[in-house]
């Protein structure tokens, strides 16, 4: 086996791991072969093809050992904060305190995929009356009941308001089960009226200053809760330092996205890029290590770009992907169909944009929270997709609907209309359940048809 970039199966990873070890692979404390995660129940890995680099090995190991990190943090007496729904704001605040670790309980929505439903989280949710008419984030109820996937946090914080009803309803159910939640309001982001002062948000949106002030007030309440839990004040200085650290991760990710999406031949696969983006939400419970993992990926991507090699054919159809997939296997499927991801809006583009460092930190965080693509109109979101899709040269857009999600019922039609009209590229809307095996032929055919359409439209 060589060092040339390849997408390999878990069986192939066994050999690859030995090869890397023989070559002097230096691993962090959570390192090891990927096979052990299958033995721990993460059986979906058996169906995935993964990048063969040491950097990707570190990424996967980092992702799949979060549970252990959280347990260690609990043993060390750190305060565990479960940051729900906001996808990127409260974790920045929490990690500004030395003895606080934030994680993202909603991330349990991937457990039914990773563990191929062997953890029975969805069945537990069913038993609580939260059935499959809800989005797979309902798995978090099962995770709280089973206590088998993360420690019960010392503090739960959940944004609500202009958020999806699924999570709002599920979080309320959670509170009804005795898990106290600090709720904070994130209002619908509207366009400023003609007589209102407007402020620019990270990304491309703007909002009325009054709304920023409102969110700032809500985040002040979160600040009080976190400081109280931590037993030390969350000062502006600490927040400013926390923002700088978060931005370090975001800068690395921005560079990685820019270089990977713009490269002629994709230097990293879509699956690893999706996981890399997820690190920005809550740093996988370790901010410093997140940055190290991203540095490794960036170095590998740059090496491959420099050498003119990639993991996919150079003529792969350039696809902008909208929404995260409940089944990670989908990212493989796109590439098997002849596509590559060159732009994403996984519902948390606000967690990728830099938080302003030249503003008072609470105002900066409020602006970042309001930049959330989900709190505004889906027309705004479509504009962001157009903006980024154009930048990365997207030839098609896939809107990957999340089954049951309240926002997915209508957003696809809106995004398709705006994006199709503005970018002039084909838009495909598909629905991706936590395990796609039974509908894989259908999905594959649709993706292949999209790729074929893209290639037919290319100038001769």
């Amino acid at each position, binding site marked *: 086996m060589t060092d040339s970039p390849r997408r390999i199966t878990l069986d192939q990873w066994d050999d690859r791991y030995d090869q890397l070890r023989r070559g002097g692979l230096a691993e962090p404390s959570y390192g090891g072969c990927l096979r052990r995660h299958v033995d721990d129940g993460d059986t979906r890995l058996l169906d995935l093809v993964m990048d063969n680099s040491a950097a990707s090995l570190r990424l996967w190991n980092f992702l799949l050992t979060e549970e252990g990190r959280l347990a260690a943090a609990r043993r060390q007496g750190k305060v565990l904060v479960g940051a729900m729904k906001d996808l990127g704001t409260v974790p920045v605040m929490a990690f500004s305190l030395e003895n606080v670790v934030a994680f993202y309980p909603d991330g349990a929505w991937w457990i039914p995929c990773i563990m191929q439903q062997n953890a029975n989280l969805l069945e537990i949710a069913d038993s*609580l*009356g*939260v059935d499959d*008419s*809800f989005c797979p984030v309902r798995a978090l109820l099962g995770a709280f009941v089973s206590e088998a996937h993360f420690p019960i946090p010392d503090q739960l914080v*959940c944004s*609500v*308001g*202009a*958020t*999806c*009803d*699924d999570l*709002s*309803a*599920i*979080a*309320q*159910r959670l*509170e*009804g089960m005795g898990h106290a*939640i600090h*709720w*904070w*309001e994130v*209002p*619908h982001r*509207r366009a400023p*009226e003609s007589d209102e002062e407007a402020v620019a948000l990270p990304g491309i949106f703007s909002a009325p200053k*009054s709304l920023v002030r*409102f969110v700032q*007030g*809500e985040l002040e*309440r979160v600040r009080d809760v976190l400081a109280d839990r931590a037993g030390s004040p969350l000062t502006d200085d600490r927040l400013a330092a926390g923002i700088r650290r978060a931005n370090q991760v975001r800068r690395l990710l921005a560079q990685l996205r820019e270089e990977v999406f713009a490269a002629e031949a994709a230097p990293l696969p879509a699956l690893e890029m999706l996981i890399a983006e997820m690190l920005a939400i809550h740093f996988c419970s370790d901010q410093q290590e997140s940055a190290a993992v991203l540095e490794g990926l960036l170095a590998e991507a740059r090496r491959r770009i420099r050498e003119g090699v990639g993991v996919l054919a150079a003529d792969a159809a350039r696809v902008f992907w909208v929404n995260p997939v409940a089944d990670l296997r989908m990212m493989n499927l796109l590439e098997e169909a002849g596509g590559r991801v060159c732009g994403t809006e996984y519902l948390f583009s606000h967690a990728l944009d830099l938080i302003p460092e030249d503003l008072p930190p609470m105002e900066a965080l409020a602006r970042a929270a309001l930049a959330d693509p989900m709190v505004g*109109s*889906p*027309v705004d979101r479509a504009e962001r997709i157009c903006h980024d899709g154009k930048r990365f040269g997207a030839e098609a857009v896939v809107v990957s*609907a999340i*089954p*049951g*999600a*309240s*926002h*997915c*019922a*209508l*957003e696809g*039609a*809106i995004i398709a*209309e*705006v994006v199709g009209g503005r970018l002039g590229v084909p838009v495909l809307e598909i*629905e991706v359940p936590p395990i796609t095996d039974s509908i894989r032929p259908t999905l594959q055919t649709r993706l292949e048809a999209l790729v074929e359409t893209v290639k037919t439209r290319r100038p001769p």
Partner: protein
Amino acid sequence: MKRVAYCNPFVPPEWIAAHGLAPVWLMLDGRSAHGPEATRRGICPCVAALLARAADGIDADALVLTTVCDQMRYASAYLESQSGAAQFLMNVPSTWQASGPRALYRQELERLGAFLVKCGGRTPTNDQLAETIERYERERLRGWEKRPLMTARQWSETVLKMRGELPLDLPLCEGGRVDGIRLVVIGGPVLAEDGSFLDMIEEAGGWIVSDGTETGERTLPVRGRRERLQIDPLDELVRIYFDTIPDPFRRPNTVFYDWLGERIAAASARGVILRRYPFCDLWHGEAGRIRQWSPVPVLDLDVAVGDEGEGARTRGRIEAFLEMLA
């Protein structure tokens, strides 16, 4: 007079009327849902009905929607992208325990006021607003007085009229139920076809002592305080709507449970019927908790509007529930 349609109880009709415009409760009809978007998987029947209604043309000069439900928020964006009709999306905060969300609601009313002026209305004076609030209150009281004489369907229709133009056109009341199995009905908004559901309950021997549907008495405002109306009527409007309407969408939604517990106890209700639509996450998410919490049996009725045989299935479940309670 220009007509302003709305379909959420957190929009005060008094505010629209005080601007010299006619508030119109937009009665949606789930059976009329049509069109490619209205039938997409995952869309709740209320939003589907709204889209269908909009496609046919809403008989109003402006439409006010709210952020109370996420699908309505998306429907607002969808309608805005489809037509240039005057539309206002009112931000109704979910949280309520801090002062900020309350202030935001008030700001949203003020912003709605500016929108209404653009639609041809005029900014009311405090006296005009106070007088309008009191007028609506008087009419609501007039309706409440007749309630014992009304059937459940008549009461439901009367409550909807309280959300529109005044004076109330009260039905010819021939006498409501005075016996039967006492029930509290809760759930989402009443659609045009839901009157038959209320009839069904009464025909099966139920006596609806409290209509806690979204469009029922649960979401009517409490009485205004006269002294506060003289000082700051807009603040009092905020109090009687935002501060006091119990709704499951609030976070936390303890006030809704307080209301439900009080209604069950005060009316000696023997059962609760929860009527919810598919893909209505806010009510669906509460169903299991309500069942666990309720001191009386709960019938969780999920209804798919327009399905053939739906009526018979619903009737059968209601009859079985009432037999169990009898």
